[in-house]
């Protein structure tokens, strides 16, 4: 399940956010009669089509897995968390239908009509993401139902959907999706630019991805900070694991990095009082430690949670710095920074955003253990009692490895074809100076 989710979440990010970037490119193209942006929009939309198709497949697999791997969860709480899933189904439907119309309607639908046919994809992507994140945040902060003798007797759908944790999880995940897609797109063109293709095509592609992602980064950091503070209150044990708070106390130090082995932390940087300050804006704020619950109710690998959290925050901060660098240069000289380190950082920004997102996912999922539904159902009780888990897992991993390779190969084939196409255009004698061939790197 974790494997498939970890894979699906990357595709989901592109499914949620890439349509907006395609539409942005088409908007710029139509508005400014910018043929380069139009070409980018057309090409990105093909990648979007492939990713949505693969996402549709992995999404279906996930719905099967809900039952095949977690029958305990579905038996107990299917009636509750089914509602947001059902809503997601509607939005996914709309996304698939309009993606088909948009994708296969290039040039057959006139300019703005085609643009508008794509808008529902972006909107339903966002609403679909909200519905799915509602399920996850419900598992962190379950509510909106009445239970009697282990059976659900009534639910309040709106409380299920807009549960306590959804107010911070929803924006955090949607912003993450936009950052992943934006920085990834930017990274692809940054690689091209570093390889010497300093043409309009590459700079346009870079900016269309980089600018929105860089603008969203500081907002994301604020949302994330709010989320962390809310978790300190809502799920203190998860928070204690994120920050290595062993004992409930005041003046809690902040650990940067470090590995916890049997209660001792090796190799970390300790900043006195900072954790208390971050949680409650005062150094004497009391922070609950994981000794507040018995060992059996604590997450298994605390160092993983802590390091993932630090990695997420660290990468987010670095992405913020890269954005600030570009903003500073733009304000002073109306240009992008020419320095090589900037382009190197931009080239890896997409991968960094994906790693940060996966780390955040590890924090929220592993940090909730041993619970699958917080304080109500343990993961062990939710899992299937069927044997052969190892065999099934191997099959899943094999299938997903194949899917991953296939996706990468398709995207590569597409880019190679575009490059050949550009070359063919370039070989027209006495024609206008064509753009250099574009090279797009490896897909997700």
């Amino acid at each position: 399940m974790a494997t498939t989710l970890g894979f699906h979440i990357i595709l989901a990010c592109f499914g949620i956010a890439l349509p907006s970037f395609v539409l942005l490119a088409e908007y710029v193209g139509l508005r400014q009669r910018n043929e380069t942006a139009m070409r980018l929009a057309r090409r990105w939309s093909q990648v979007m089509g492939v990713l949505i198709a693969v996402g549709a497949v992995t999404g279906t697999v996930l719905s099967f897995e809900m039952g095949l791997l977690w029958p305990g969860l579905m038996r107990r709480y299917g009636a509750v968390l089914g509602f947001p899933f059902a809503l997601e189904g509607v939005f996914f439907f709309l996304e698939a239908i309009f993606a088909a119309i948009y994708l296969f309607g290039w040039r057959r639908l006139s300019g703005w009509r085609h643009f508008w046919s794509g808008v529902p994809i972006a909107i339903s992507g966002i609403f679909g993401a909200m519905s799915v994140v509602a399920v996850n945040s419900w598992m962190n902060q379950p509510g909106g139902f009445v239970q009697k003798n282990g059976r659900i007797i009534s639910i309040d759908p709106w409380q299920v959907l807009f549960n306590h944790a959804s107010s911070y999880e929803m924006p955090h995940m949607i912003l993450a999706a936009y950052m992943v897609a934006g920085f990834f797109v930017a990274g692809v063109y940054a690689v091209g630019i570093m390889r010497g293709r300093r043409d309009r095509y590459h700079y346009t592609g870079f900016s269309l991805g980089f600018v929105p992602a860089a603008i969203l980064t500081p907002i994301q950091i604020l949302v994330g900070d709010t989320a962390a503070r809310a978790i300190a209150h809502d799920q203190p044990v998860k928070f204690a694991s994120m920050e290595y708070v062993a004992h409930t106390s005041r003046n809690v130090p902040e650990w940067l990095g470090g590995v916890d082995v049997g209660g001792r932390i090796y190799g970390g940087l300790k900043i006195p009082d900072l954790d208390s300050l971050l949680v409650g804006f005062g150094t004497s704020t009391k922070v609950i430690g994981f000794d507040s619950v018995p060992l059996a109710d604590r997450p298994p690998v605390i160092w993983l949670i802590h390091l993932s959290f630090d990695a997420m925050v660290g990468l987010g901060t670095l992405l913020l710095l890269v954005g600030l660098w570009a903003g500073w240069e733009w304000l002073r000289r109306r240009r992008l920074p020419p320095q090589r380190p900037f382009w190197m950082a931009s080239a890896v920004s997409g991968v960094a955003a994906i790693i940060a997102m996966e780390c955040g996912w590890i924090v929220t999922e592993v940090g909730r253990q041993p619970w699958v539904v917080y304080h109500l159902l343990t993961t062990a009780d939710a899992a299937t009692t069927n044997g052969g888990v190892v065999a099934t897992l191997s099959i899943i991993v094999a299938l997903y490895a194949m899917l991953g390779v296939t996706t990468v190969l398709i995207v590569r084939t597409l880019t190679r074809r575009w490059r050949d196409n550009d070359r063919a255009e370039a070989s027209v004698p006495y024609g206008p100076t064509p753009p250099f061939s574009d090279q797009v790197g490896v897909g997700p």
Partner: protein
Amino acid sequence: MPATIGAILLVGIALYAVFAGADFGGGLWDLLAGGTARGWAPRRLIDESITPVWESNHVWLVFDLVIFWTAFPRAFAAVMTTAALPLWLAVAGIVLRGAGFAYRKEITDLRLLRVAGATFALSSLVTPFFMGTVIGAIATGSISANATHANQSAWTNATSLLIGFLFVAACAYLAAVYLTSEAERRGQSALRRYFARRAQLSSIVAGGLSLALLAELHGSNRLLYDRLTGRAVALVIVAALCGLVTIALVSERVERHRLTRAVAALGVTAVIWAWGVAQYPVLLPGTSITLSSGGAPEATLDALFGVFVLAAALVGPSFVLLYRMQGRRLLGTDESALSSRSLPESGDL
């Protein structure tokens, strides 16, 4: 309300069968189309008719699963546990099929193209077959309410296997009928005859399998047999008539493609509804789980109904739009780059 949701679920299953079933059947005809040269024309027609719509058709499955687990969580958990193996195989088929189909569009190397095509075609066969066996396991009452372990005999009994084969035949039948009318609309008369023959053949095979199934049920599951020939008999007759009418309709040359499609779809829908009516109000035969006793609380079902209304209001018109644009051939693969497989676009307009 549980009965309403049950009906919605049945509608969803019928829609999945009618739309996605045809896509699966397309894979079967792709598999049987013969060598590269001989199979080129039918494969191309299959490909062009499936490409823009398969993803949307596929979403019906997600929709059905979600309704199933939300409205009837206990039954869902029981089915998913008992029939885990065929469901995993169906999932594998779905993954391979999606990958094979998507991949095939983007590759140009002939050998790889064959591999991708074979993957797509074979998995189109696997998925409906195993889904059929799962339906068989439910219908024969082989699923126990509090199942904790997979049970292979649940879906390997004669009834379940027959239903599996029937599913494959029904998919082939739907696809052949749709492709016949598609070829007719494009004025490709050779292809029209090609698929009309196959539509007739698969109609006969599906009909034969249905009769065999009824005969088998007569011996093994008297209750279901009595109900299929009792309260659900009207639907069974409709299904049989639809099969016969299609055989007659596809052989005609007149432009009746819409009617033929509708009749074929109606036939398959009637079979699914016959199953539902025969089983009503029991959800898992052989257990105490009925629509009402196995259902989620009222508020969940109300919410689900609300979602269904929303879906009908939003998704319905969008679907009509998609199919109308597909019908008027407003949708086609684009970017000159994509035509590197050099499909003569104007030839069939």
